[in-house]
């Protein structure tokens, strides 16, 4: 993982940064971060959290709660909470955050896929290079 800095400030260097997949396709923003204790009990960043369920609490207020509840309503029953991107997938922390995975393989891609499948792909020329 390329980081370029001995220390990072989460709000300055991680939160709200653009996450990009290995081919440069845009994945999501770092809406929140998940910490879990390591062997010595120190909190360590274990995952990037994305989607309304992660962003809502940070936006706060009625709008934030609404975001969360919408996600709660729309998410498939087998999924709970926000989408997780394990920190192991991160290859670089720069002006954007690069992953070793491809966007389509991640849970963050669900909404995009849904809109594509139900609206965009139905329109003529949706595969045409813009």
């Amino acid at each position, binding site marked *: 993982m390329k980081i370029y800095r*001995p220390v990072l400030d989460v709000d300055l260097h991680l939160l709200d940064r653009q996450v990009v997949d290995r081919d440069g396709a845009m994945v999501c923003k770092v809406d929140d*971060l*998940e910490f879990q204790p390591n062997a010595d009990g120190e*909190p*360590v960043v274990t995952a990037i959290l994305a989607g309304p369920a992660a962003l809502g609490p940070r936006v706060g207020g009625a709008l934030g709660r609404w975001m969360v509840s919408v996600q709660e309503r729309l998410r498939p029953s087998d999924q709970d909470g926000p989408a997780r991107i394990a920190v192991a997938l991160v290859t670089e922390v720069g002006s954007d955050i690069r992953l070793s995975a491809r966007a389509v393989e991640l849970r963050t891609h669900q909404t995009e896929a849904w809109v594509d499948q139900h609206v965009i792909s139905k329109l003529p020329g949706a595969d045409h290079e813009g």
Partner: protein
Amino acid sequence: MRASDIMGKPVRCRDGEAGRVIDMRVDTDTPPGAEVAELRLAGLVVSPRRWGSTVGYDRQDDRGPWLIWWIVHRLHRSDRYVGWDLVRSWADGMVQVDAAVGELPGVPALPPRAT
């Protein structure tokens, strides 16, 4: 624990409030034995003021436009750094710190980005 469980939360020291958490500093080194780097929570940046922190001028060396840099610095000159080892708990939207406000050091400047 999520970053948002700590960010923006009030920080209660033995002798009262030190402000709110405006940022969380993590070490990025690879610990002995491990083969990949880990982002280990090292401490919290605490400020009585929130404005201007996301701009990032408060922890950076001189940076233009000078006027904005100066204003942000004055707003944040009483910011404090709380080593994670001093944090007793972060339950119910409040960070309990095992120290007095006066004992807390200033915020160490961010080392510049290596290329």
